[in-house]
């Protein structure tokens, strides 16, 4: 249990440092409880365009996740319940794509975006992150075990696939929908490489990319501000994903262990 507690150490240290006076951060002894509690580091963080970055992150992660879940629910339902030639093959291709590192495509994608003048735009930031195969996988697994009696009655009534999907299948798919949403949202919220590449303007950066400039080797913010402000910035950054995880832990773990897939 000691080791488990040690695992939380870096987080506690982060929060503790964020409330310290910058002059009391570098101390010979480790002080877990700040001698003086202060909010001045959080105020200092607000000097940077952190609200803009946060807004960008919220817009990008929310739209990308929404589109991904809508598309995944439709595709996952079709691949599990509708009969048409090639559906097994299509699913195999989706799964096989997980083997290929997206980095091979990142450079051409970036050039394409620059040529279309989509660099530093929301569509450039969002669209490449929409097709997350994990979503399709979770929905397909769920709809495969869906009791078919529910659909039969609707078919007898002459309802088409879209009606059945919308009014019967989807309302019952709450738990896969939540699982897929929290996982995909977290991945989008934390996404680093693509937002780093596609955003040239300070005003279009997302939170992880903007705050990364507080690192001593990358940017210039910390050299001026020190660890206390940097820790305040990352504490703000991890609040949404950690809160989401603590609230919906069950769905997170169920969704991830279902496929043993990530990203």
């Amino acid at each position, binding site marked *: 249990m000691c080791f488990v507690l040690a695992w939380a150490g*870096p987080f506690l240290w982060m929060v503790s440092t964020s409330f310290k006076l910058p002059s009391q951060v570098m101390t010979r002894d480790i002080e877990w409880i700040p001698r003086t509690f202060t909010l001045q580091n959080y105020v200092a963080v607000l000097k940077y365009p952190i609200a803009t970055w946060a807004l960008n992150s919220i817009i990008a992660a929310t739209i990308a996740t929404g589109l991904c879940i*809508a598309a995944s629910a439709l595709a996952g339902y079709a691949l599990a*319940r509708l009969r048409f030639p090639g559906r097994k093959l299509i699913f195999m291709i989706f799964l096989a794509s997980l083997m290929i590192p997206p980095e091979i495509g990142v450079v051409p994608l970036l050039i394409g975006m620059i040529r279309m003048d989509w660099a530093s735009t929301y569509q450039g930031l969002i669209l490449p992150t929409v097709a997350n195969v994990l979503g399709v996988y979770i929905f397909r697994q769920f709809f495969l075990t*869906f009791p078919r009696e529910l659909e039969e009655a609707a078919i007898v009534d002459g309802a088409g696939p879209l009606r059945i999907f919308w009014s019967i299948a989807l309302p019952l798919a709450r738990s896969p929908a939540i699982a897929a949403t929290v996982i995909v949202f977290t991945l989008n919220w934390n996404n680093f490489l693509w937002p780093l590449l596609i955003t040239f303007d300070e005003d279009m950066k997302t939170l992880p990319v903007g705050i990364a400039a507080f690192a001593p080797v990358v940017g210039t913010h910390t050299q001026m501000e020190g660890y206390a402000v940097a*820790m305040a910035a990352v504490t703000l950054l991890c609040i949404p994903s950690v809160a989401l995880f603590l609230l919906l*832990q069950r769905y997170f773990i169920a969704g991830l262990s279902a496929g043993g897939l990530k990203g």
Partner: protein
Amino acid sequence: MANDEQTAAAETSAVAFVGRSKIDWTGYAFVAAFAVPFLLFNVAPVLFGIYVGFTDWAIIGEPNWIGLDNYREALHDTWFKQAFVNVLLYALLVVPGVVVLGLSFALFVNRSWPLSGLARTILFTPNVVSATVIGLVWVWVLDTQFGLLNHYLGWFGIGPIPWLTSANWSLIGVSIASIWWDLGLGFVLFLAALQDVPKDLYEAASIDGAGFIRQQFAITLPHIRPTISMVVTLQIISTMRIFSQVYVMTNGGPAGSSASVIFTIYQSAIVRNMLGYASACSVLLFLAVLAVTLLQRLVLREVAHA
């Protein structure tokens, strides 16, 4: 495996049921909702990237076909070679770290009831935060003079170790942060696997006088071998593609000692504007990941049959 059978059964029944009438053309429309962005933004760039790897493309101008020149250059590039060695070292440190620690924690949490929920939360939380958080927190924890880790190591007369500022240590420093970040997923998968091991096997073994350690080697390990293999595979793939921690924590330094392959790809593409070369390097990385993954599968299978 029971799950697969269930799935297969459900699949056939669904087919039999819907299939009475005709082909559901709507299916294609439903799939297209996902397949269109998938093809445009995931598949097409990868295919184009493979092509670009055979050209001398810079952002300006048209790509000219230069055959295998980029690949030849990569194999002679000392930076790229060092980065390649580095990702193998990262894999050698991070993969066993995640598997051994993740499995030990899972065994511990699986046994002791009262605080196992809390332990699970603590161990998994690092997994849900971004690389920026990991990077900045660990730069501070690994600080040579005032860092948490060196302080406590000092109690044992160790250090101070220049974790991120010395070429000998930077790769190890980044690996420690990566293990902390990645452990959660492996841990959760191990825990799920442990709960499927039949409990009566342990009872029988303890009646036969086998101790805790013996039981783990005789019963637990053989039962969860598929999960171990899966965690090792996933971890190799993600560790060999390490980038954001490196970017935030050390920027590849000092002197390239912690640079990963994707980090050099990023530099070739963005800083040095050599797109063809960068694409060729990413294809090489993919082939290396594939080779290591297949090799690891083979080795684990051999060990199991030995």
